[in-house]
């Protein structure tokens, strides 16, 4: 055992204990105990709960359709672009989901900006029309918003996967076999990419099943998606509601596990379909060909469309935060002033610091823990199963955090920044791991041997060769973990108990009043921090690349 293993293995053990085993063990134990106490009558009552079946169908449909469509859109888009585009992804990645939803609905709903603009030009729509591009609340609206928000994350993951593949050689081979560029992308490269996208797709699916705030704002509600119904039971104090909430969480967990299973079949199915087409010796069905072609054309529009969309969303948030008296059908508010900004600045300042401190510290810890785990896997020469590393991402967050809260009450622990920090580390860790793992595990270790033969210690090689060579995934891992920490509501609110106020807790708590002006104001701040971090990383990477090429 060399001295670097002596360093990494204990660090990995501590990480796994503190960030996975203890937090999840405590919660799973109490969850299992409660589930064990459920009677048959309670189960029957739950199965007859109003709207349970459609709610479950909504959740399943949403979690299958949104990630898949987002995945193929991202794949179609990446067929033609290089990862230099990733700077453009930053604003999209860092717009908070809720703010994005508010902005999209304000742009496209029947009383939204588009219709208002049409009214001011043509005089039509003195009252808002019955239908516009997106209704204020519907399954379609929810689906569209989630897809648009998931594509950038998948693009980032695709770029990082592409960097590990000899794409140019694949294309050459495809070319020599007589494939078009498009065909070799879909038939040679995409199967490889899909294999590498399994974990990111799992993350996206889990998010789609468990997300609550966006469906509450724009989704259907008679019934809503399952997560929304579970929340309603949790807020209800009727005697059976607690049991329904528990069983609902269990059902959500079941759905999540099913989806993860399906997700593993995705790549094999795709590969099988390709082989089947080859074997049967027939040409690609005409329909698919046309469809593929259209997809590529649409994909070409994706970047301009997304840039326009995100600018639209940002501008509408900014204008709303400055607006005074803005009612349909006016295109612009009757007055613009910075009153809100002046008034709130004093109160926002401490929140910015708290958010920044928490996010920077927990992203760093999460990243270090992820690296320690990855290196320890290498030294033990055994690849650990991946799903336990992502458990915190897979488990339903609210019951998990409530179990911790129960523990804190039991041991008479006062609410404290430290607990919030720890919880942020737990939830940021799987994302850091997810982003870094692929590149790390495929890193060519011979570089380290070369380094050692030149007289560097193993640890020295790790620090001076591996870290700089994996600069891109590591920095992106940090920045994604940073954004995850910024976005945490439940753990901050429940463990902080008002002692720890971040931009996100404020945004969510204030948005319960539906005041677009306040919501826009806080959403903008929630957006600025991750954006600044992402842009800094993107610029730094661009600079380093340029220096290396020069």
């Amino acid at each position, binding site marked *: 055992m060399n001295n670097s293993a002596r360093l990494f293995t204990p660090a990995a053990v501590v990480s796994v204990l503190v960030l996975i085993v203890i937090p999840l063990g405590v919660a799973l134990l109490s969850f299992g105990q409660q589930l064990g106490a459920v009677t048959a009558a309670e189960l029957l009552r739950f199965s007859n709960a109003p709207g349970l079946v*459609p709610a479950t169908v909504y959740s399943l449909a949403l979690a299958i359709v949104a990630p898949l469509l987002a995945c193929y859109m991202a794949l179609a888009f990446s067929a033609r672009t290089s990862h230099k585009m990733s700077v453009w992804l930053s604003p999209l990645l860092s717009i908070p989901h809720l703010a994005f939803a508010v902005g999209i609905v304000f742009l496209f709903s029947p009383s939204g900006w588009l219709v208002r603009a049409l009214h001011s030009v043509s005089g039509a729509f003195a009252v808002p029309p019955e239908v516009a591009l997106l209704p204020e609340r519907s399954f379609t609206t929810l689906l569209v918003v989630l897809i648009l928000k998931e594509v950038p994350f998948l693009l980032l993951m695709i770029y990082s996967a592409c960097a590990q593949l000899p794409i140019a050689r694949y294309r050459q081979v495809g070319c020599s076999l007589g494939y078009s560029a498009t065909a070799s992308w879909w038939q040679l490269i995409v199967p490889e990419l899909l294999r590498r996208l399994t974990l990111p797709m799992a993350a996206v699916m889990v998010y789609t099943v468990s997300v609550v705030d966006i469906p509450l704002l724009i989704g259907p509600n008679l019934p809503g998606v399952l997560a929304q119904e579970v929340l309603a039971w949790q807020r209800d104090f009727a005697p059976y509601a607690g049991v329904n909430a528990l069983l609902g969480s269990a059902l959500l967990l079941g759905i999540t596990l099913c989806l993860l299973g399906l997700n593993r079949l995705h790549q094999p199915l795709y590969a099988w379909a390709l082989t089947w087409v080859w074997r049967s010796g027939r040409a690609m069905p005409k329909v698919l060909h046309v469809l593929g072609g259209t997809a590529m054309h649409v994909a070409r529009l994706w970047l301009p469309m997304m840039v326009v969309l995100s600018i639209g969303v940002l501008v509408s948030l900014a204008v709303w935060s400055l607006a005074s008296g803005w009612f349909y059908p006016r295109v612009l508010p009757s007055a613009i002033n910075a009153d809100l900004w002046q008034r709130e600045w004093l109160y926002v300042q401490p929140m910015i610091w708290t958010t920044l401190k928490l996010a920077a510290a927990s992203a760093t810890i999460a990243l270090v823990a992820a690296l320690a785990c990855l290196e320890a896997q290498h030294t033990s020469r055994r690849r650990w199963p991946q799903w336990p590393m992502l458990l915190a991402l897979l488990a339903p967050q609210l019951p998990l955090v409530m179990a911790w809260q129960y523990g804190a*009450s039991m041991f008479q622990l006062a609410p404290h920044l430290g607990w919030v920090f720890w919880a942020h580390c737990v939830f940021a860790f799987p994302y850091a791991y997810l982003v870094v793992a692929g590149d790390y595990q495929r890193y060519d270790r011979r570089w380290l041997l070369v380094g050692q033969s030149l007289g560097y210690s193993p640890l020295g090689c790790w620090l001076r060769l591996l870290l700089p060579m994996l600069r891109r995934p590591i920095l992106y891992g940090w920045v994604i973990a940073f954004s995850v920490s910024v976005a945490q509501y439940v753990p901050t609110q429940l463990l902080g108990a008002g002692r720890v106020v971040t931009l996100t807790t404020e945004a969510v708590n204030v948005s319960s*009043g539906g005041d677009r002006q306040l919501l826009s104001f806080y959403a903008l701040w929630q957006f600025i921090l991750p954006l600044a971090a992402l842009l800094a990383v993107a610029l730094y990477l661009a600079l380093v690349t340029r220096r290396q090429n020069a």
Partner: protein
Amino acid sequence: MYKFNLTSIFKRLLPALWLLANTCTAADWSEVQAEARGDTVYFYAWGGSDDVNRYLRWADGELNRRYGVRLKHVKVPDIAQAVQRLQVDAQAGRLDGGAIDLLWVNGENFHVLKRDNLLLPDVLTAVPNSADLLHDKLPLASDFGVPVDGLEVPWGIGQFNLIARDNSFADAAINAAQLLDFAKQNPGKLSYPKPPDFIGTTLLKSLLLDLTDSDPRLYQPASETAMAQLLPVLWQYLDKLHPMLWEGGTVFAQSSAQQLQWLADAKLSVAFSFNPQELAAKVEASRLPRNVQQHYFSVGAITNSHYLAIPRNASHSAAAKVAINFLISEKAQQRKADTAYWGDPAVVDLPEGGTLLPSATELHASWQNALEQRWLQRYQR
């Protein structure tokens, strides 16, 4: 000659006793104030209203200046979050040192807190300013049909009212039939917050009162026979109303806040509110257009109060009492009632108290859950 008279002795004794009692509480109260000094009160309260948030910032400044007490508003999207925290504390055995010092609460959440014995008793009598509360004029002693029993201190008054655009209704007082007529003539322009949102449920209660001519059984526990006899008329009405609602009644507003936003967006013609002065305050703050009017149900605007309460395991209960005492003082209530700040009706006598709408008493608490559950069973499939 001096005549021994029991009545006169009693009459003289009474003020003396009253004075004595008062000085006692005054001494106790100065002890409470001394204990409170330097403490921070963590006040769990709904954070969705800019007006309320700013009002509480003002109260924090005043409390700090006068009594050396800080009032920290812990904003929550739903006060059920605080109730859950107290329940978790109770299950885990945290009997003191809790995170919540003060709560803004009423209705079902209060019932749960009272049932589970989670509130500090005798708060009402412990704060001197409670002597000024308008107990004889306002329904303050029972919270959604459940006796307050000194566990809560009234803070403000809610009255169910409608805010409508563009002169949708001719008179201020409307009834269920007029609402249905309006829906028929203006399909897609009405919606209501989906029960169990409490404003949505209160609409159902108002309709039920109207459609059953305020049947006395609505003020008693909801029995199976009463429900079987009274509810069908409501379902018949809603069956006719729903197809005329926004999106044909297949989707509802999620909250009264969302509905107000849609009113400002001209998507809907009517929104509902529990604050009789919300319209004035929102128009003044440019959050609602000027062409809106207030209406109420002719059976009476369902009226209830909202309260302040201290959890049993609060860490700073003395400071919380000082905060309550200030919040129900004339100065604080005056500012609260002013539509330039918040516009919530006062619970004490004010020189310029706003006028209240003709009121109807809250239904018995059990109707709340009955209506919500049956509405879901009937319309959410």
